[in-house]
């Protein structure tokens, strides 16, 4: 009886403490942030070490999980198989990260963004249904909260939290991620929301405008360029929802960035001198014409004729 009473009291105390923590967090009390910040400061050297040691294994899992997604990918992978073997021998990780970095710098250079490059040191767990990653640069490198994060193809996410030597990035695939988007060329605007994977939903704001498959989306940009700088490529429209009852058209968008293979990212720390407009719209893939051969067969007269 006494033991039962003690257990009940303990349970009640713990439940009240948990509810107290939730209330404090929802009211924005800074002590909770301090807890998290302290934890991340302690964890980041371990994550950095883990990233160095586990990169080859990580790449293996990434390759395996991406196999068989589409026929094109399989064909591409087969074609690149021989080259990949050589690349693996020649420090595959370093080469791949350098390649990503080069493309990111090209992207940032065209638009005139001032960027700080960073390596991904942790991918984050999906247990909370969120999509985040941690990078190895933080406030000491000039990174602040609510800055745009780029991959070599376009948007990667936004800086959610900053620590002295690391930063937490909310990926564009995160369900809570939202960004103002405009369609390249037509300048129609809408809101793009993450869905937990590489697809996102676009909600147009004007009911008189339309969107079509293949349209390219760019970031509209925020006031003072934070959290989003203008002109960053987001993705392309893969499906249009033409529901009769909808007030404005919506669409499914596929991000250019493959979030599961991010190794290097760039944080935009300086505003562009001018709006890059549509300068960053990715080039459409060139279709190689396939030669056609016409064979004409003339029937041989049969002996009976």
């Amino acid at each position: 009886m006494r033991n039962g009473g003690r257990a009940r009291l303990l349970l009640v105390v713990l439940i009240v403490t948990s509810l107290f923590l939730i209330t404090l967090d929802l009211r924005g009390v800074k002590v909770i942030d301090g807890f998290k910040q302290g934890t991340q400061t302690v964890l980041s050297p371990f994550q950095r070490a883990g990233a160095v040691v586990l990169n080859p294994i990580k790449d293996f899992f990434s390759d395996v999980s991406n196999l068989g997604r589409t026929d094109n990918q399989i064909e591409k992978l087969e074609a690149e198989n021989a080259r990949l073997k050589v690349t693996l021998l020649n420090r595959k990780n370093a080469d791949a990260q350098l390649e990503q970095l080069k493309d990111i710098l090209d992207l940032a250079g065209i638009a005139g963004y001032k960027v700080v490059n960073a390596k991904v040191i942790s991918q984050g767990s999906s247990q909370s249904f969120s999509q985040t990653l941690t990078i190895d640069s933080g406030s000491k490198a000039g990174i602040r909260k609510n800055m745009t994060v780029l991959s070599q193809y376009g948007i990667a996410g936004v800086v959610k939290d900053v620590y002295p030597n690391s930063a937490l990035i909310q990926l564009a695939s995160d369900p809570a991620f939202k960004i103002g988007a405009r369609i390249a060329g037509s300048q129609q605007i809408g809101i793009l929301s993450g869905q937990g994977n590489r697809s996102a939903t676009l909600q147009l704001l004007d009911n008189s405008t339309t969107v079509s498959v293949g349209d390219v989306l760019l970031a509209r940009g925020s006031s003072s360029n934070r959290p989003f700088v203008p002109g960053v490529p987001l993705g392309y429209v893969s499906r249009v929802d033409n529901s009769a009852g909808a007030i404005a058209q919506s669409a499914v968008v596929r991000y250019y960035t493959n979030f599961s293979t991010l190794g290097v990212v760039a944080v935009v720390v300086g505003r562009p001198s001018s709006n890059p407009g549509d300068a960053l719209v990715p080039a459409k893939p060139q279709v190689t014409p396939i030669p056609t051969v016409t064979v004409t067969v003339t029937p041989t007269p049969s002996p009976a004729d």
Partner: protein
Amino acid sequence: MFTRQLSFSAPIFLAIFLVQEAVISQFRLPGGGFSLLLIFALTWAVLSQPEIAAVIGFASGFLMDLSQSASGPFGQWTLLMLLAGYAISYIGYGDDNVHANTIGIVFFVVTATFLVEIAFLLSGALLGVALGSFSQMVTTLFGMSLWSLLVAPIMLPVFTKLHGLVFDSRSVI
């Protein structure tokens, strides 16, 4: 006795948390991957008395809230893990069909993982946490359960041995 056991448990939980954040979080596994801390805490909860399981759940939930990838308000995982730890122990404690049986423990842990994730989704929805598309939620939910089914039997001998060392019990499998 109670304090001594919990103080011995603390470094083990911190070590598992470190492994989760520094090693397992490096991989973006298909289907959402798994949480070693979640599996570990639930395994210990199955093997412990309800009041100890509640404290274990509280501590592991607190660590999960400290994780950078935790999306809900701080304390959400603490509350859920506390309740899950207590419930799983209350149902399974004293039942030798569960304790002396590897399959029983794995079944309990995997089912609890599935239910805890559902509880996280429901409480998250109430607290205004953005959770993504329905298909993605279902994929993560079943993906994490399947990963737990794969990982729990592999890690079970280690977890039960650690539990035996700390709690001096005979529940080592």
